[in-house]
C-alpha cells in the first residue's frame, strides 16, 4: 500500500483536532459527492448522503486504524450512507403533493439527467458504484473490493458488465453487441 497522504491530518483529527478534520472534508468532499451523486442520481440526496458520511467518519475516526488508505475507508462509509439513503427513499410513501408520477422514476428525472446519468440509471446499484469508483475515482480492484465488501473477482465481472452496458447505452458500442463468433 502506498503511504497515505491523509495520514498526518487523520492523526491530528483522531486527537480531536477539528481543523484537521475540516481539511480532510475539503480534500474529499467532491469525490464523495461524485460517488454518491452518480450512485443515487440525485444531487440533494447525494448531498445528504455525503453529510451523513462525513458525520459517521467524524464519529468513527477512533476506529480507523490505518489498515487501508483513509480515502478507502471514507469511500466505504459513503457507499453505505448512499445505500441507506436509497433505502430510506424507497421506504418513504409517495407524497400526495408530489407531482412526480412515480417515485421510481425520480432517478431519471431529477437534476442529474444527462445522457450519461440516464445510462447509469440502467445499471444496478452495485454496478454503478463499481464503475464510478473505478473510472472516475481511479480506485484499484483491491480498493473497490474493500469498499464494496466483495471479492475482487466480483468487482471485475461487475466492471466488465457495467462498461459494456454503458458503451451500448451511450451508443459508443458500435454496431450492436459483439457477434457470437
Amino acid at each position, binding site marked *: 500500500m502506498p503511504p497515505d497522504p491523509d495520514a498526518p491530518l487523520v492523526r491530528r483529527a*483522531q486527537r480531536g483536532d477539528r481543523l484537521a478534520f475540516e481539511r480532510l472534508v475539503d480534500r474529499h468532499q*467532491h469525490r464523495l*459527492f461524485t460517488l454518491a451523486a452518480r450512485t443515487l442520481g440525485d444531487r440533494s440526496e447525494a448531498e445528504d448522503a455525503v453529510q451523513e458520511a462525513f458525520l459517521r467518519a467524524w464519529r468513527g475516526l477512533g476506529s480507523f486504524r490505518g489498515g487501508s488508505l483513509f480515502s478507502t475507508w471514507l469511500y466505504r462509509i459513503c457507499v453505505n450512507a448512499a445505500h441507506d439513503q436509497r433505502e430510506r427513499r424507497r421506504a418513504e410513501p409517495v407524497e400526495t403533493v408530489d407531482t412526480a408520477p412515480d417515485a421510481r422514476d425520480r432517478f431519471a428525472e431529477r437534476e442529474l439527467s444527462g445522457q450519461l446519468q440516464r445510462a447509469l440509471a440502467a445499471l444496478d446499484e452495485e454496478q454503478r458504484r463499481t464503475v464510478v469508483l*473505478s473510472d472516475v*475515482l481511479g480506485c484499484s480492484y483491491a480498493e473497490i473490493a474493500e469498499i464494496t465488501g466483495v471479492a475482487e473477482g466480483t468487482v471485475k465481472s461487475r466492471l466488465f458488465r457495467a462498461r459494456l452496458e454503458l458503451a451500448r447505452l451511450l451508443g459508443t458500442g458500435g454496431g450492436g453487441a459483439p457477434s457470437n463468433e
Partner: protein
Amino acid sequence: MADRHPDELDLLDLVEGELPRAAQGSVAAHVEGCARCSEVVRQLRAGRGALHASGVLQLSERARDGISAAIDEEPRARRFRFWEPRRLGLVVAATLVLVASAVAVAQWGGVGDEQGGDAASELAEDDGGGGDGAEGGGVEGDAQTVLPESRTDTIRVAGPAREVAAELRAEGFEARVVRGEVVVQLTGERLDEGQAPEEDRLQAVLAERGPGRVTVRVER
C-alpha cells in the same frame, strides 16, 4: 488467430493494464487477430472513457457548510483516544501516577489543582509514545503520532496566490508565494489541546476566501 477466445475478464485486465506480463503478449496477439475480442475491448474502453470524461462533480458550498454545521452539533471536545481500548490501560496508569503525584504535592503543601483531565491525557500520550512495550504490543506504527513533530498541511483556496499571501500578512502571518503556492509559517504551538489562536485566525481567513485552486502550505 488462436481458436479459443481468452476469458472475458482477461480482456478487462488487458484494458486495465492488470494482466500479468506473461499473459499480456498472447492475449494482445489474440485480440489483434480476433474481431469479436477486439470489439469487446473497444467497448470496454468506450465504457470506461465515457465515465472518466464525466469527471468529478462539485459539492455545492452550501452543502459543504452543512457538513461543518452538522459536525458542530456533535458533542464538543471528542477525544477519540480515550475510547481506544489499547490505550485505556495507559490512561488509567497515567491517571494513577498523576493522582499519586498530586497526593505527594498536597502532602508537601503544594496546590497542584491545575492538573485536569487534559494533563492526564497528555501524560498518557507521552507515555504511550515511549512505552508501548508496557502493553506487550511492540512498537506500533502510530507511536509517532504522540511525538511533537513538524507538520505541513495544504489547503486549497480561491486565489490569486499573491492576494492570499498579502491578506495573510495583513493578518500578521508570515506568508509568501513560492512557485505559485502560498507558504504560511506558523509558530509551532501544539495543536492537540484545542486550537491555538493562530490556527483559528488562519482558518477564518482561509474560510473567508473559500475553496479554490491556490495551494496554501501551512508549515509548523
